[in-house]
């Protein structure tokens, strides 16, 4: 069972003909460029959601019985949002560069970080709610 070539290999074949028949070997295929842009925007929305979650945790959720847990979780969410905002720009830039040079796409480091921190926050909230 062979795995079909993914975007990391396909994007190195730089351009496809447009409706106007234009080809520009200096620029990557617009489909990959736009996909990269939409992925960046998805990361930004994730970052915004974490920021909103942090603010909501502090402003809307009633205080937990264990002191400072609520504020700590809010700070963790906002710090993660800050890290993602910066990392998403860096990654967008890295991918644009890799596509122009025909290099392999960089590994998405933010995904495991995001999953781990969200799991930790959810686990903490679950423990605090059980203790209550």
């Amino acid at each position, binding site marked *: 069972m062979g795995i079909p070539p993914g975007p990391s290999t396909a994007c190195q074949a730089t351009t*496809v*003909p*447009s*409706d*106007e*028949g*234009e080809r*520009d070997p200096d*620029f*990557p295929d*617009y*489909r990959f*460029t*736009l996909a*990269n*842009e*939409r992925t*960046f*925007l*998805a990361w*930004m*929305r994730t*970052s*915004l*959601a974490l*920021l*909103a979650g*942090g*603010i909501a945790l*502090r*402003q*809307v959720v009633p205080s937990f019985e264990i002191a400072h847990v609520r*504020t700590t979780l*809010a*700070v963790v969410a*906002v*710090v993660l*949002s*800050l890290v993602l*905002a*910066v990392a*998403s*720009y860096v990654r*967008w*830039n890295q991918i*644009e560069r890799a596509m122009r040079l025909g290099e392999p796409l960089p590994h998405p480091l933010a995904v495991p970080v995001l999953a781990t921190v969200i799991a930790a926050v959810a686990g903490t909230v679950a423990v605090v709610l059980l203790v209550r």
Partner: protein
Amino acid sequence: MNGAPGPNAGATGLQAERTQLAWVRMALAAGALAAVTTRLAGGGPSLVLAVVFGLVVAAPGFAAAMVRIHALQRQPVPRAAAPWTVGLLAGSLALADALALALLVG
């Protein structure tokens, strides 16, 4: 241009359209966060802070989205976004994060 659709007819438009919609969702999310933050704030100084926070979150996002959507509508073959539009969006969100952190910790 002879008006006849080519083999990729519509593909460029759909890709660009999806990207424009992604920018619109992003701007809407930023605007919603700004509105909710302002709504949650009480009166006085906290309201002023909330409005400043909302402007930091929403205004650059709206500006970047408008510039990018306009560019996508003009270009027959979409090009990569200008780094300043992407940087403006990421930078404003990072600034809003820093502001929120200062308010949470301080």
